[in-house]
């Protein structure tokens, strides 16, 4: 079966690239699963989403992806994230800490947009690291 060529890039570096069988990402419309020979598509990703790349024989590659796009054309998948981090690179303790601080800030003032964004991002980081949130 054909394989997908996947590249996950952020403005400052290339996070990961390689072959995969299936890519699952979360766009503003909902989850999108991409398998080989998918029709060309460009989607807007949500803030604080989790990207999952399924590979044959290997464990899934999981990354926290904040904003950006996914573009699919001719079995090439590029994920352009404004910021992204592999699940294995996440500092779990720091992310938990940041999440708690953000949640405390939300409780004190409901319309703190920065804190809500921060909470979303850190929740995604934790989910990418395999923690329950």
């Amino acid at each position, binding site marked *: 079966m054909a394989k997908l060529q996947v*590249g996950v*890039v*952020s*403005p*400052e*570096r*290339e996070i990961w690239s390689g072959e995969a069988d299936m890519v699952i990402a979360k*766009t*503003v*419309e909902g989850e*999108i699963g991409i398998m080989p020979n998918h*029709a*060309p*598509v*460009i*989607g*807007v990703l949500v803030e604080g989403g989790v990207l999952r790349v399924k590979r044959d024989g290997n464990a899934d590659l999981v990354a926290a992806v904040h904003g*950006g*796009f996914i*573009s699919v*054309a*001719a079995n090439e998948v*590029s994920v*352009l994230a*404004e910021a992204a981090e592999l699940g294995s690179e996440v500092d779990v303790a720091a992310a938990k800490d940041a999440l708690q601080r953000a949640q405390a800030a939300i409780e004190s003032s409901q319309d703190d947009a920065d804190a809500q964004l921060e909470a979303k991002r850190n929740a995604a980081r934790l989910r990418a690291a395999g923690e329950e949130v």
Partner: protein
Amino acid sequence: MGAQLRLLRRRIKSVKSTAKITRAQELIASSRIVKAQQRMQAAVPYEREITRAVTGVVSNTSSVDHPLTVAKENPARAGVLIITSDSGFCGGFNANLLREAEALRGLLESRGIQVTPFVSGRKGVGWHAFRHREMGGQWVGFSRRPSYSDAKEIADALIESFKAEGGIDEIHIVSTEFVSMLTQNVVVNRILPLEVVETTEAPKDGPLPYFEFEPSAAAVLDSLLPRYVESRIFSALLQSAASEEASRRRAMKSATDNANELIRVFTQQMNQVRQAEITQEISEIVGGANALADAAAGKE
């Protein structure tokens, strides 16, 4: 010791310590160029992908009608983003940039367009403040190591003033392009309104596919175009950072070379003076001895 000799010794000492400083600066700059180049390389994949995505969207939506891509018929105001350095000691780097920016300003004004400068880097900000030029925005403190959030901040300010009613109608960037260690060019690019490049020749990998959009073409374009502008600004910042270090390295190298040449000339002069003094002393001693000998011979 003669006064002239002492003077020369003092000058040599001072030039030597200057040479030490410039030599150190040169080495620091050389090591920084490498890092700046690596950061430039690391940003390339994202830029390539986002350019491809923009081309994909634009070529799919037959009539691109987005505020960021539509050129006004009679632009009245333009914003010029000038990317200078924070620190000096980098030769003609800032002077070249500002000269080019002035030329662009002249060109735009001759077309009846009012120019608002947006300045990044302490040197450029100082230059504009000294001339009491009003700036649309100023950013300092990251010229050597720009991060993406810096680029985002600049892009947000530019896009906001671009979208605002009665704001600027077009945006140009004056920055330095890093070609190689030895060559850096000042370049002027118009970033907004985006020039939708319609290439007539077919792309290498066949015609662009017909994309579907999630959620819609307009929404994708809405969030894609600002990212594209950010990425363009980020790449300009990174190239400028590398160019700044390259230009600093070159300036410091020629300063060290000049100092070494001065030391050589002064040392030669010093040796001449010293030799002249010794010769004079010898001839004085010989003369004195002869005079004494003559006097003694006369008495006998």
